[in-house]
């Protein structure tokens, strides 16, 4: 293994690095990713596309957006410039996005579950459909409850049994989140007390579960899949576990506990200003067309797989489907408003 690596590194040498660095510097100078050999088109887009990510760098949204953009450049001849605007459960990113020029050159890469719940509960004044339109869905994944490798709980039943004796502490990324809804609804249905502990990001949440600061974590299932043997998935908030291999063949929560909780998923989707959607339909059409081509490209499947996300979570959906996902999340947020706001 080692020798192979050293040989491989020897082959890379200065020349390959400098060639790569040249391409990289060119891309860096233009601020984003550019497909090698791609000439810029004459029409739209004639400048960089700004991608607003309402969470921090290195998180799930960053991972998925970069995987998408790495292939998207083959279908839309432009550069993609990433900007990260975390804060206030995603509100900062959305508010900042809304302050941008609505010209279809600024897009938001949304995590529909938590962000739509945030928009619904935090009184931001931003309304899905009226101010922002999700034009293309890319991935969908269910929420999961999981523990670290040293946790005493090996099944969901054991966790719930403990929950009947004392309150359970559950690490979550933030309170307005489908995973939070799942755990609160579970506690309500089974009559156990759930204490949600928001750690402000997937990585910090995962660490809390691994180090057993809390009893378990509730997050989108990919967070536990990429951690491999550092996590043990106890249950999935879905009708069916479509990724049994990466999730320790975990049962669905309803199947394990006999509950009747709704399926809780979160979809990634590209959003544009409603104003841009109305004023520049041809630009939006060009974006959507290239997004669809990207999703159909086998290279995208490989890129997603390369980041550790099961390709089964690729869930291409058009505007109607993306907006339906958002609407379903709004209804979920309204239904569990009291639990999430403590009112």
């Amino acid at each position, binding site marked *: 293994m080692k020798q192979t690596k050293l040989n491989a590194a020897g082959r890379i040498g200065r020349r390959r690095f400098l060639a790569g660095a040249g391409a990289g510097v060119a891309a860096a100078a233009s601020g984003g990713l550019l497909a090698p050999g791609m000439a810029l088109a004459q029409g739209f887009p004639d400048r960089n596309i700004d991608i607003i990510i309402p969470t921090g760098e290195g998180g799930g949204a960053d991972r998925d957006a970069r995987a998408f953009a790495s292939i998207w450049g083959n279908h839309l001849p432009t550069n993609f410039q990433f900007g990260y605007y975390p804060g206030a459960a995603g509100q900062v990113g959305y508010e900042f996005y809304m302050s941008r020029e609505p010209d279809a050159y600024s897009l938001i890469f949304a995590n529909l579950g938590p962000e739509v719940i945030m928009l619904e509960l935090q009184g931001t004044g931003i309304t899905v459909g009226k101010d922002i339109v999700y034009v293309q869905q890319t991935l969908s994944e269910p929420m999961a409850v999981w523990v670290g490798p040293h946790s005493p709980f090996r099944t969901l039943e054991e966790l719930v049994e403990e929950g009947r004796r004392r309150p359970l502490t559950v690490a979550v990324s933030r309170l307005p989140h489908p995973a939070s809804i799942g755990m609160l609804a579970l506690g309500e249905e089974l009559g156990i007390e759930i204490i949600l502990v928001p750690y402000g990001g997937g990585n910090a949440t995962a660490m809390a579960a691994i180090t057993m600061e809390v009893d378990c974590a509730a997050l989108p299932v990919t967070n536990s899949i990429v951690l491999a043997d550092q996590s043990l998935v106890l249950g999935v908030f879905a009708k069916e576990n479509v990724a049994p291999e990466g999730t320790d063949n975990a049962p669905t929560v309803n199947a394990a506990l006999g509950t009747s909780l709704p399926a809780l998923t979160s979809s990634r989707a590209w959003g544009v200003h409603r104003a841009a959607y109305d004023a520049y339909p041809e630009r939006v059409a060009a974006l959507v067309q290239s997004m669809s081509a990207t999703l159909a490209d086998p290279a995208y499947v490989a890129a997603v797989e390369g980041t550790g996300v099961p390709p089964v979570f690729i869930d291409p959906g058009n505007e109607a489907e993306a907006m339906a996902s958002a609407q379903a999340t709004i209804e979920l947020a309204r239904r569990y408003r009291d639990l999430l706001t*403590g009112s």
Partner: protein
Amino acid sequence: MEMNAAGLAELFLYSVSMWWLIIPAVFIGILMGAIPGFAAHNTIIMLLPLTLAVDVDLALTFMVALYCASHLGGGIPAILLNIPGTGGAAATTLDGYPMSQQGNASRALALSFVASISGGLITSAVTLFMLQYLSQVGFYVRSVEMVVVMLFGLALIAAIAARDMIKGLIAGALGLMLGAMGADHIYATPRGTFGILELFDGVPLVPALIGLFAISEALIMLESRTIAPAASARAMPSWSQTFREILGAFRHWWLMLWTSLLGLVIGVLPGAGASIASFVAYQQARVFSRTPEAFGTGHEQGVVAPEAANNGVTTGTLVPLLAIGVPGGSTAAVMMVVLQFHGVPFGPRLFVQDPVLAYGVIMSMFVAYVFMLFTLFPLTRYLSRITVVANYYMAPMIVAFTLVGAFVPRNFMADLTIAVAFGLLGYVARKTGYNVAAILIGVILGPLLERSFLLSMRISGGDWTVFFSSVIGNVLWGLLAVTLLASPTMNLLRNLRSARNTQSKMEH
């Protein structure tokens, strides 16, 4: 997961063969680290397209070398201009800048470089052999213990306040209040933001740091001709003097050893970082020093301790990513993006599937520090000349460069306004005898303390006794009490002894 000696030796030679990559990365890192706002994290993000375009081992070597060097670079303007390049270098200003004002800039730089490089070498060597043990630290130091760790850092306010109790405490309290601005950690409800969106995520550290230190310092600088006394303007230190200063810095080897290990352990903790490590190290060095009263006046130990600690952090922050698979800080998070982009696993799987890459990251860090040893020491001779450049040239350049730095991390125009507002606050504070470092400590540590406090309270269901529920936490509380009581007790004993001596002399 462990490597034998032959494997490590081979890995060392392989990393050395990357000199053509490490040396440019070191110089970029030093330069970016020295300009507030750029630092490692932002520079690595700016260069991300480059690192994604090359093979993963080259990318990681480049990023790691740049990361280490930027921590070292942050100390240079802290010493020469009283402007920390990064939050981790803020504590270095406390003694580094007074040394420059006394015409000892070259000695202060030598101390900083030796401490930084030694700290980096010690901690990367320790990490290579003890990675698995270090990764366990997170299992024992959680939110409850983090509250006490933060209080160790905040204790520095008390130390600063010892010189002028009322003003020191007011400055610290003001910093804590400013740090409380932004959305609350649990419910994301905005507090004290005046509806300003750019403050929803709290007071941004870089514009605050730039304002408090750089802009206020630039205004102060205009009142004098140069930073260093006029006498030192005539002479550049000779090579033999530079060499003596570098060798002389090794007198503090014991301080470098324990403060760098302290930095390593703090770096491993999730949510901690170089700022906390350097504040804690400075405060502890002062407590255990035989000459605590000299701290803050241009004391060598006051430069060594924070610089060794903040370079110890560099290795520590990579431990959670390498050993567990969760990044311990923002720079490690960007490295994770690169690993993901190349389809390379991280965490324990990395050691199973590609041990050379896993250990190579830490070895690259070690080798980067070795290269810094040879490439940077000569710089101490020339960099110190900055202190004799006329201030009417320096001040506008500082304002221009640092305002760009204030804008870079978030691209918000409002951050320029925030930097200027903090600049005016810093200027008024300096002119009226309030310590800007105490304000910054509050701004940095306040939100972190609040976060750990709220998480602990939430986990315990609101039971405050949770803060005394763990053995490690209680030991830390005990040490904190010793730390806080040590100085006054020593002073009391010293006073009693001298009073007794005086009395006995009078009797005789």
